[in-house]
C-alpha cells in the first residue's frame, strides 16, 4: 500500500462537500418536462432515426405504460421518493447540434474546461494513456478521438446516434437481443426514450489496440440520462471498455436508467469496467442520483468470456445487476464489484449468472462497504440449467460495516438443475477491528490512513481487475467517499 500522505491529507482538508460538484452553463436544447408519444417521436425525429427504431421505441413505451414500478428498498433511513416521470425532461443536447464539432478545436471551450476540472484532460489523457474517449456530455457525443487508429483495425467505436446512421444493419441486428425492450421497468423506459450512448463493434479476430472509454456526465438540470450502450465482439475479438461517471451537485433526485448490452461471439472476450461516482446526495440524504441500470452480457459463442468490474461509490440509490448469460460451451462470466455507501446512500447490486452451455464457469466477487447510514445489498442469482453439464460457480460476497447505523445485506439465489454442477457460495460480514486501527496508529499511521489502507486491502481482489489508471482513480474515490466515517 503506497498512499501518498500529503495527497490524502489534501483530500481530507477539502471537507465532505462533493468534490466534483459544479455546473457548466450551456444553453441546452431541452424539451419541456413530460413523457408521451410525441416526446418519443420528437427524440426520434431529432436524431433522424429510421422508422423501425421509432416503432421499437413506441412499442417499448407501450409496454412500459403497463408495467409496475418496482419499489423494493425497505430501509427506513432513506425512503424511496417516488419518481415523477412527467417532471423529467427527456431530451437535452448542447445547442450546436446542427453543426457538430469536427475536431477538438471546435469543441466548446467551456466543455473542455469541465473535463479539465473532472481530471480528464481529453487530449492529454487520450494521448498519454492511449485511450480513445467518446465523451458523452448531456446525452450527445461531442468529441470522439482516435477514430482513425481504430478504423485502421476495423473497430467501430462511435456514439449510438452515429451508429444508427452509419451502421443501421448492425444496430438493428443486435439492439435489444440481450436486454429486450420490455425486460424490466427501467429498461423499457430507456428503450423508449434513450438519447445516446456508445456503440462498439470489434470485427473477427481483432484485438482492440487500445482501451475504449466513455465518460458520462449528467449536466442540465432535471434531465434524466438514458444511455444505451451496445458492444459486439465478433469471433476471436477482444475489447476492454471503461465507463466512468461523475456528476455535478444537484438538490433534486435525478434518474439515471441506462442499458448496456454486450455480445461475445466464439472465442471473443469483453472486459467492461465501471467507476460510478454520481452525486450521492448530502449527508442528510437530500438530492443525489437514482442509478437504475440494466447491464447484461451474452456469451453467445463457445469459449467466449465476459467480465464485469465495477466500483460503485456514488448515487443516492443504486440498483444494478450486471449479468452474464453463458450460452456458449466453455464460456466464462465474471463479476467483480466494490460498492461503498456512506451517509444515506443505498446500493443494491449484484449479478446474475445463467449457465446454459456445457462446462461454463462463473466467478463472483462482491465487496460491500457501509458507513454512516448507508445500506449495501448484494442481490444475485446463479442459475444452472439442465443442459449445463459441469458448470462451476464460485461466489464470495464480503461486507464491511463502519459504524452502528449502517446495514449490510446479502440476498443470493442459487438454482441448480444439473447434478454435475459445483456451486459454492460464501459470504461474511465484518467490521474494521479496533486492534487493526490500533496497530496502524502505533506505527504512526493516522486513523484515516489506516482505514483507507484496510479498505483498499479489503477490495484488493476487485481493484486488481481494473485497468491501471482506473484502479488509481478507484482507490482515491474510496478514500474520498469514506471521509468522516472513521470513529
Amino acid at each position: 500500500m503506497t498512499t501518498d500522505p500529503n495527497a490524502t491529507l489534501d483530500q481530507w482538508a477539502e471537507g465532505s462537500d462533493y468534490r466534483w460538484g459544479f455546473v457548466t452553463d450551456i444553453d441546452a436544447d431541452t424539451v419541456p418536462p413530460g413523457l408521451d408519444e410525441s416526446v418519443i417521436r420528437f427524440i426520434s425525429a431529432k436524431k433522424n432515426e429510421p422508422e423501425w427504431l421509432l416503432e421499437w421505441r413506441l412499442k417499448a413505451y407501450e409496454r412500459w405504460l403497463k408495467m409496475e414500478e418496482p419499489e423494493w428498498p425497505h430501509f427506513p433511513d432513506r425512503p424511496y421518493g417516488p419518481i415523477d416521470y412527467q417532471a423529467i425532461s427527456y431530451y437535452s443536447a448542447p445547442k450546436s447540434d446542427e453543426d457538430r464539432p469536427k475536431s477538438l478545436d471546435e469543441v466548446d471551450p467551456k466543455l473542455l474546461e469541465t473535463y479539465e476540472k473532472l481530471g480528464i484532460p481529453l487530449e492529454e489523457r487520450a494521448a498519454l494513456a492511449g485511450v480513445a474517449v467518446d465523451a458523452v456530455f448531456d446525452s450527445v457525443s461531442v468529441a470522439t478521438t482516435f477514430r482513425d487508429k481504430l478504423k485502421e483495425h476495423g473497430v467501430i467505436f462511435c456514439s449510438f446516434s452515429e451508429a444508427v446512421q452509419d451502421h443501421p444493419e448492425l444496430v438493428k441486428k443486435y439492439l435489444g437481443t440481450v436486454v429486450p425492450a420490455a425486460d424490466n421497468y427501467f429498461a423499457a423506459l430507456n428503450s423508449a426514450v434513450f438519447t445516446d450512448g456508445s456503440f462498439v463493434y470489434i470485427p473477427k479476430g481483432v484485438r482492440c489496440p487500445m482501451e475504449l472509454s466513455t465518460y458520462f456526465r449528467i449536466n442540465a438540470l432535471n434531465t434524466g440520462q438514458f444511455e444505451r450502450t451496445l458492444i459486439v465482439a465478433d469471433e476471436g475479438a477482444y475489447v476492454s471498455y471503461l465507463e466512468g461517471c461523475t456528476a455535478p451537485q444537484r438538490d433534486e433526485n435525478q434518474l439515471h436508467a441506462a442499458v448496456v448490452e454486450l455480445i461475445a461471439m466464439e472465442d471473443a472476450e469483453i472486459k467492461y469496467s465501471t467507476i460510478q461516482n454520481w452525486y450521492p446526495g448530502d449527508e442528510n440524504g437530500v438530492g443525489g442520483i437514482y442509478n437504475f441500470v440494466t447491464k447484461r452480457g451474452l456469451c453467445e459463442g463457445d469459449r467466449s468470456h465476459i467480465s464485469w468490474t465495477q466500483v460503485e461509490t456514488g448515487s443516492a440509490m443504486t440498483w444494478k445487476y450486471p449479468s452474464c448469460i453463458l450460452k456458449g460451451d466453455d464460456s466464462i462470466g465474471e463479476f467483480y464489484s466494490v460498492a461503498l455507501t456512506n451517509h444515506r446512500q443505498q446500493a443494491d447490486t449484484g449479478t446474475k449468472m445463467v449457465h446454459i452451455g456445457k462446462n461454463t464457469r462463473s466467478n463472483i466477487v462482491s465487496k460491500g462497504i457501509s458507513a454512516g447510514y448507508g445500506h449495501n445489498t448484494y442481490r444475485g442469482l446463479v442459475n444452472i440449467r439442465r443442459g449445463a453439464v459441469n458448470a462451476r460457480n464460485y461466489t464470495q460476497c464480503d461486507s464491511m460495516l463502519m459504524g452502528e447505523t449502517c446495514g449490510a445485506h446479502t440476498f443470493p439465489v442459487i438454482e441448480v438443475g444439473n447434478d454435475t454442477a459445483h456451486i459454492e457460495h460464501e459470504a461474511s460480514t465484518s467490521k474494521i477491528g479496533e486492534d487493526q486501527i490500533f496497530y496502524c496508529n502505533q506505527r504512526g499511521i493516522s486513523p484515516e490512513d489506516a482505514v483507507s489502507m484496510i479498505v483498499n486491502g479489503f477490495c484488493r481482489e476487485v481493484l486488481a481487475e481494473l485497468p491501471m489508471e482506473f484502479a488509481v482513480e478507484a482507490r482515491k474515490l474510496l478514500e474520498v467517499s469514506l471521509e468522516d466515517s472513521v470513529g
Partner: protein
Amino acid sequence: MTAIRKAAMNAYESILWPSMRDESWRYTDTRAIAATDFKSADPSTVIKADSLSPFLLDSDMPLMVFADGVYQPDLSTATSMPGVQIHRLADVIASNPERLEGRLASHADYQDDPACGLSTAMITDGVVVEIEAEATMETPLHIVFFNQGTTHPISTHPRVLIVANDRSTGTVIESHVGTSEQVILSTPVTELIAGDNVNLDHYRMVREGAATWHLGDVALHQGARTEVSSCVLAFDGPLIRTRMRGTLAGEDGNAILHGLAMGHEDRHIENLLRVNHMVPHCRSRESFKHILEDKSTAAFTGRIYVAEGAQKTDAVQTNRNLLLSNTSKATARPQLEIYADDVKCTHGATIGELDQEAMFYLQARGIPADAARSMLVQAFAGEILDDVAPESLRNQAQLLLRNRLPAAEHLAAME
C-alpha cells in the same frame, strides 16, 4: 381464542394460496392445494396400535397420539409429571384458556403465511407442555400425529405449544407420519417459548403418506442464556415445507436449527428459515442439508436478521445440497440482513454431486461404487444426524436413510 382464530382467518382469507410469483412461494406450487376441497376429519377417527408401531421410539417414552388431528386416549400414555404439565390443547381451551394468552399464536406468525393462517384459524386440538421453573424433563415426550385420511380430502392442523420456564430442561419429539394414499393437508404449527437459562431440544420427524401435503411451522422464542435447538428430519411426503423462525430475545442466547431432508421421485422439499438476533451477544448455528434423488427438488431460503444494536452477534448458516441424479434440482437463497456493525455473520451454500475424488479413493480400496456412494451420502447426512441426541430417534433416522440407499446390506455389514 376467538379473536386469534378470527384474525388468523382474516389473514388467511386475504392471502389465500399464493401463486409462484410470490417471493416466499416461488418454489412451491400450491395450485393443487388451492383447488382441493378439504373437509375436517371425523371426530370419531380411531387407529389401531399396530399401524402406529413402526413409528414409535423407545417404549418408555411418554406418548401423545393424534389421528387426523383427533386425540387417541387409548394409545396416549403421557400424563403430567412433577414439574412438567402435559395437556391436550382442547382441554386447556375449554378449562382455562387464559393460560394460553400471550403464548399461543404469539410467535408463529400467521399474518403473512396462508398455511400458518389456516392452521391458526382452525386450532382445535394438540398438545400443551409446560415445564416449570427449575424442572427437568426426565424422558423426552413423543407426540405422534398420524394421518390416515378418508375417502374425501381432509385437512388437519396439529398444534403444539411448549413453554419452558426459567432454568428448566426438556426434550420434545414430534412425528408426523402416515401410510395412507388419501389426500390430506397437514399444517402443523409448533411454538417453543423459553424463559431464561433454559435448555430445550425439539425434533420433528416427517414421514407422511404419499398424498399428504405437509406445510409446517416451527417458531422459537428464547430468553437470556438459553440453548434451544430444533431439528426437522424430512423423509417422506410429496411436499414437505417447513417454515422455521427463531428469535433471540435475551442476551447470551444460543439457537441451533438443523434440517435434513431426503427427496426422491418427484417430491418437493422446502425449508424457510429466519433467525432474528434482537439483542447483543447471541449465537446461532443453522445447518440444512438436502439429499436429492430422481426428479426431486429442494429449495432453501434462510435469513439471518441482526437488529440495530445486536452487537457481538455470532451467526453461521450453511445449506448443502447433494444432487444424486441429473434430474433433481436445488435452489438456495441464503440471506443476511444486518443492521449492527460489530457482528460475525457468515453463510455458505453448496450444490453439487458427490466428490469424485472421494469416490475414487473408496473404490480404489475395493469398495463397490454403490456402497461407496452410499457411504458418502451417509457421511453427508451424519453431520446432522450425529447431533440428534435421543438415541432411538437417531437410530430410526439412520435406518431410514440407509434403507433408501443402494447396497444397504453392505453398509450394515460394515458397521
